[in-house]
């Protein structure tokens, strides 16, 4: 049922079509590879052929002799600084003397055609002296070989809560221990990384596919050696990001910019799929040792976790990604005694960084698997067990963050159970599985999550957003924000927020393209923060403008402010909707009254206090919550798994657009299903072998899962209209719930992701052997 207040909203909470739908559907949207400039060159990176070694010699002569080759640049040619590290300064733009992973860029070629650039890249002769490579976290941890002179630890986050952990376990009724491992996940945005750089006004302009144009601006300025104001970054339409276009595009933009700066010609650098798969960042593989103590009544009383994350050869975003891991490894539960260590380790493998969920889906998988084991062993109902331990208002998280508001976790658990028809399905599945003539087994799995909003304690200093709104004299509106549209629907949701606040129609709103010369620096488009951050920045500006429009409406309608309501492009008498003045007429009136209808907005994320030494305090200001239920079917003969249905209950505060929200969830489900059962990046001796879409397999329509999305709207006081973020939470519970469903069907808990058919088949055979043996006895 709608409350009175909800009824008042005219566009917020409504199903509004995407504002960018048509241009994407009819193919007219311009992605970076659709752009071209006169006299443009094509670039190609020359990448390391070995995972670890010294560069003894780089011979460009054969490449330079090829017709159409304009330049081959190496570290020695960099006009600014040879560094690209986004958080820690440990990564060169082009490898200098040492290479630390197979695929690390060493040189960059520019040529008249893409084909010539490709050919020339193969003609750059590099002589290496191979060194011993560190290829897994265990070897990295013991530091027999160091990837960097300072040692192999990238970061180490500790969480210490309650008393002595061993004493706590001694008081547990039962204690469970298990180690889990999880492989990479590749973003596989359909549009590979790409950018186009040119010299303009004695500076550099870069077009491209970015999540964080202001990061790109910084990286280009550093590499070329220019002040930030001489570097202009213009956003193209982005063909998917998912975290993969957070810091990583800076590396390519800086290289293209360097070539453009040296050659004084436009340079386009589009990665082909194989190179993109080889060199771009991935989700961290992890090894996770879990120990959970439970009381007789089913309360988790102690948790000990040691998670080792493969950060790859350079830090990139590991320090912030793994900070999030350290907040989320215990799940959305109240646990009095916690001892957690999250350790990022260098290896001679591709650097890992941001990916939707940011270091959390891995530990959620481990924690939720532990809960599945506990429920199965002690006979607890999976929903009741989670509810019994769930965070709620007044409770403390594992970081001792006292939850004050907007916590709909328990409602998501209840809704997920009800909407998935869990109890009925469970009985049906039990009957199905008892029938040996069936070719398949069916299983149900549950998972709950929470997710800290915005950048949190580790990134508060750049957790801000700006906006600019201009109302034109015909009543059309131009919005200017610093976060980008990358497919998630930001433009549509932000247009709805602005339209609601201004009283205009969504159709009146246009966006200024994101351009660092024009839009305010609003930090990165990451962490599911755009709705909250840019939304609030727009509200700040819109509220100022609304006051001016309202003053004009008071004059025209001869009413008081509290007698006037604004929506759908009209300001009207609350008591008589026939008495109104249009938004356009008010804009015109203000224009001729010399009242400015242009204003800035600004928003800073709520400040949080956190003790990094013990992992205690407020890591984030508020959390989104979700519970997912998966239904899977496992082929007994082949071990193949199909996810038939997912029911996802999300508390994201106010839902601004229910259609786009469910679209986000459906997309998150597919990515999570891929991660859980099919996406298997194979790396041998430091070389990634799965460099195409027929070897790194993602879900197709053949893997289609029905998705039922339901919402719990526990409003957040700091969100625009009470909204929280959804982009990442949509994926986060999926892996754990799918693996739990497979485990429940197969009768054993899978300790490695992805759960490939071979492993399921083996597990089913092992179980059959066990069952046969026990029958013989």
């Amino acid at each position: 049922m709608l409350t009175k207040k909800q009824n008042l909203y005219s566009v917020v909470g409504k199903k509004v079509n995407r504002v960018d739908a048509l241009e994407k559907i009819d193919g007219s949207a311009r992605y970076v590879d659709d752009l071209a400039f006169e006299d443009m060159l094509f670039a190609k990176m020359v990448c390391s052929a070995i995972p670890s070694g010294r560069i003894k010699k780089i011979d460009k002569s054969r490449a330079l002799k090829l017709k159409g080759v304009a330049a081959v640049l190496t570290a020695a040619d960099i006009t600014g600084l040879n560094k690209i590290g986004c958080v820690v300064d440990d990564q060169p733009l082009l490898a200098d003397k040492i290479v630390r992973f197979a695929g690390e860029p060493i040189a960059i070629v520019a040529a008249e055609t893409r084909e010539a650039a490709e050919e020339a890249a193969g003609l750059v002769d590099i002589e290496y002296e191979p060194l011993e490579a560190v290829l897994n976290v265990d070897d990295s941890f013991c530091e027999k070989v160091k990837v960097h002179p300072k040692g192999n630890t990238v970061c180490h986050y500790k969480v210490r809560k309650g008393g002595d952990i061993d004493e706590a376990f001694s008081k547990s009724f039962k204690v469970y221990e298990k180690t889990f491992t999880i492989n990479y996940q590749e973003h596989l945005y359909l549009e590979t990384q790409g950018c186009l750089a040119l010299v303009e006004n004695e500076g550099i302009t870069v077009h491209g596919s970015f999540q964080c144009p202001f990061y790109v601006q910084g990286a280009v300025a550093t590499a070329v050696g220019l002040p930030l104001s001489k570097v202009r970054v213009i956003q193209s339409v982005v063909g998917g990001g998912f975290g993969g276009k957070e810091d990583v595009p800076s590396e390519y933009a800086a290289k293209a910019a360097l070539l453009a700066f040296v050659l004084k010609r436009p340079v386009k650098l589009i990665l082909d799929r194989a190179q993109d798969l080889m060199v771009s960042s991935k989700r961290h593989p992890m090894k996770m040792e879990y120990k959970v103590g439970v009381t007789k009544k089913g309360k988790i009383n102690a948790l000990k976790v040691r998670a080792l994350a493969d950060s790859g050869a350079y830090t990139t975003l590991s320090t912030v990604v793994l900070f999030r891991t350290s907040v989320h490894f215990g799940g959305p539960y109240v646990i009095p005694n916690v001892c957690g260590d999250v350790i990022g380790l260098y290896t001679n493998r591709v650097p890992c960084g941001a990916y939707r969920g940011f270091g959390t889906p891995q530990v959620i998988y481990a924690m939720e698997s532990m809960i599945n084991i506990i429920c199965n062993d002690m006979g607890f109902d999976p929903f009741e067990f989670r509810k019994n331990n769930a965070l709620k208002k007044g409770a403390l998280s594992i970081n001792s963050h006292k939850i004050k508001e907007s916590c709909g976790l328990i409602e998501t658990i209840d809704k997920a159970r009800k909407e998935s028809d869990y109890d009925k399905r469970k009985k049906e599945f039990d009957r199905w599985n008892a029938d040996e003539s069936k070719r398949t087994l069916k299983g149900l799995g549950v998972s709950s999550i929470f997710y800290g909003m915005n950048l949190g304690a580790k990134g508060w200093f750049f957790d801000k957003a700006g906006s600019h709104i201009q109302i034109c004299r015909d009543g059309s509106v131009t919005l200017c924000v610093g976060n980008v549209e990358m497919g998630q629907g930001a433009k549509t949701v932000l247009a709805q927020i602005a339209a609601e606040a201004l009283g205009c129609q969504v159709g009146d709103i246009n966006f200024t393209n994101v351009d660092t010369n024009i839009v305010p620096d609003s930090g990165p488009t990451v962490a599911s923060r755009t709705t909250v951050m840019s939304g609030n920045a727009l509200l700040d500006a819109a509220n100022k403008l609304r006051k001016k429009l309202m003053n004009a409406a008071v004059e025209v309608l001869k009413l008081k402010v509290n007698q006037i309501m604004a929506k759908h492009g009209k300001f009207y008498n609350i008591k008589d909707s026939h008495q109104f003045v249009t938004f356009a007429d008010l804009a015109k009136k203000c224009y001729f009254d010399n009242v400015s209808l242009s204003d800035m907005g600004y928003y800073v994320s709520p400040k949080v206090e956190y003790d990094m030494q013990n992992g205690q305090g407020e890591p984030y200001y508020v959390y989104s919550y979700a519970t997912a239920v998966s239904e899977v079917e496992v082929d007994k003969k082949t071990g193949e798994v199909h996810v038939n249905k997912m029911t996802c209950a999300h508390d994201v505060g106010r839902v601004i657009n229910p259609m786009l929200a469910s679209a986000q969830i459906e997309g998150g489900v597919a990515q999570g299903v891929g991660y859980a059962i099919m996406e298997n990046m194979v790396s041998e001796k430091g070389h990634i072998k799965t460099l195409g879409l027929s070897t790194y397999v993602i879900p197709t329509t053949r893997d289609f899962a029905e998705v039922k999305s339901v919402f719990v709207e526990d409003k957040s006081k700091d969100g625009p209209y009470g909204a929280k973020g959804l982009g990442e939470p949509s994926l986060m519970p999926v892996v754990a719930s799918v693996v739990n469903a497979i485990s429940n069907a197969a009768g054993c808990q899978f300790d490695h992701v992805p759960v490939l058919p071979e492993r399921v088949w083996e597990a089913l055979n092992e179980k059959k052997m066990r069952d046969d043996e026990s029958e013989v006895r």
Partner: protein
Amino acid sequence: MPNKSFSAANLELKDMVDIDFTVNSVRRVLRVPCNYTLLDIIRYELKLTGAKEGCGMGECGACTVIMDGALAPACLVLATTLSGRDIWTIEGIKEKEDAKPIIDAFIARTATQCGFCTPGMVVASYHLLTKYESPTDEQILEGLSGNLCRCTGYVKIVEAVKEAAKELNTLKKEGRDA
């Protein structure tokens, strides 16, 4: 202008190929480098950039076009095989009367997110709906299985295709009744 062809810089006349074919019902007579693919030709010579390169290996479907009535990944079709062919790209298909319900349904069902796969998905959907008047779920899933999408989970796309099929059938019925 993009990927300025070999013709200017590197290639001899013997490396060029003459082709004579139809794109979106317009006859095209072109001389292109012999290693060009159909995707190179439509994107770089004809400036029809709706078809995208997602992999260049025929694995993703972002460059899907209709060639002689069948779906084809443009990145795998070589220039030398093109003469006499009839090609339809998203730019031609979007102008067709019977494509409008598909485009409308994709908008109404928010069947696009980042949009990179979408033109190819629309082409495949159009082809599917010319093949089947009222496709079953199985036929839709099979018909779109060559087009990868990383954003939507395919849910809204399948909904859009069903809605478009319904609308097309209504229009046809109205046409018959009129």
